């Protein structure tokens, strides 16, 4: 095993410190070191979007970062979305109501992509949503109910 490096970071508001090999991917660090398995691994080359998390508020591919690179940063994963165990994030609520997921494998990455997108685009239209989600692949839904969920979440009636 290689010499280990110390990583100190914050995830969903909680501070962590671990010793890791430099080659450990951030996606694997979150899942195996921190047991935050909401972030999924689909392709490990940046195209499927299942591993998308927030790094200092920006959406990034956790499979394309080394855990050691997250030292000193603030991360947010899907586990950090719901305000409490009894209350869903508005996006999660909308996905439930509009059947925006089936197997759920892509969903965490889609949520984390949408959070910063909706912060800067409060009432997106369908084209804008499709463009924003072009970096997230879904095998189950055909995307229509995902779009419906985002429209529902962002256009309160």
């Amino acid at each position, binding site marked *: 095993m290689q010499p280990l490096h110390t990583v100190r970071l914050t995830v969903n508001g909680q501070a962590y410190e671990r010793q890791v090999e430099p080659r450990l991917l951030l996606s694997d660090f979150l899942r195996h070191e921190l047991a935050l398995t909401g972030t999924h691994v689909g392709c*490990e080359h940046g195209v499927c979007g299942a591993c998308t998390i927030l790094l200092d508020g920006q959406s990034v591919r956790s499979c394309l970062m080394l855990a050691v690179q997250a030292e000193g940063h603030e991360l947010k994963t899907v586990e950090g979305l719901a305000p409490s165990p009894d209350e869903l994030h508005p996006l999660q609520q909308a996905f439930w109501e509009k059947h925006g997921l089936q197997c759920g494998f892509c969903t965490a990455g889609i949520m984390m992509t949408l959070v910063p997108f909706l912060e800067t685009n409060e009432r997106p239209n369908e084209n804008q949503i499709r463009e924003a989600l072009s970096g997230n692949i879904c095998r189950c839904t055909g995307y229509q109910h995902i779009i419906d969920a985002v429209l529902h979440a962002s256009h309160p009636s």
Partner: protein
Amino acid sequence: MKPAPFVYHAPESVDQAIELLGEVGEDAKLLAGGQSLVPAMNFRILQPSVLIDLNRIDALTYLEPTDDGGVRMGAMTRQAAVEHSEEVAKRVPLLQLAMPLIAHPQIRNRGTIGGSLAHADPAAELPVAAVAADASFVIRHNGSQRTVAAPEFFQGMFTTDLGPQDLLVEIQWPGTPARTGWAFEEVTRRSGDYAMAGVAARVTLAQDGACEQARLVYLNVGDGPTLAPQAADMLRGQSRSSDLFAEAADKAAADEIFPFGNVHASPNYQRHLARVLTIRALENAWQRAAG
């Protein structure tokens, strides 16, 4: 699909990085945004024994206007920062057209200007934009510095002027001359995919509205940014006409590009796309030059 072991360094200054390169450059890869390097390492296509992470070097992230009306950028400037920069939109409008075409927002949040240019993927937008806009590259080496113009910088597929101990530190984009318009057009199967073909066009008009000069640079139809000087020359001194654009497009597509084809498009289809996009790009660039 995990990287092979490597020794990891995270220098905090340019000097430290250059010193490290001097010691281990032959065995090392530089880690910038990681959006091309880490996939290659995950697949074990690349197995560097040493990785020098540039992400702790704050001094390489900057975006400043220059006196000639252009912009200079530190090599570690994130693509998203360039995409959203008002200075860039004003001074180097070609970049404002090209940046949103690069992959996806998540990739652009980590990907860097210098990393993409140093990687020199023939399917990448930034090398084509650099050649179209006359960008130059400031490169540091133990004890020396040099500036290389874009056409000399790109030397082939994934090959640049950078040697194993070189560090690309800055990219300079000149200001846009008067009466000059730009276009960047590409076709992808899905938004954010690698383009099957693409073109950057630049048109400068004379006082009387005729074309003074033009430039056409193509994407993914050769082993790097591919210039079509003969096609571009056909516009010189001419006034705007659809027939003229079609002739130039025919010339470029038939004689000046060298598409290999790939799983998404045959070489013939790439030529067809190049032809259609040339017309579109010349229309748009001319319109912007005149407007």
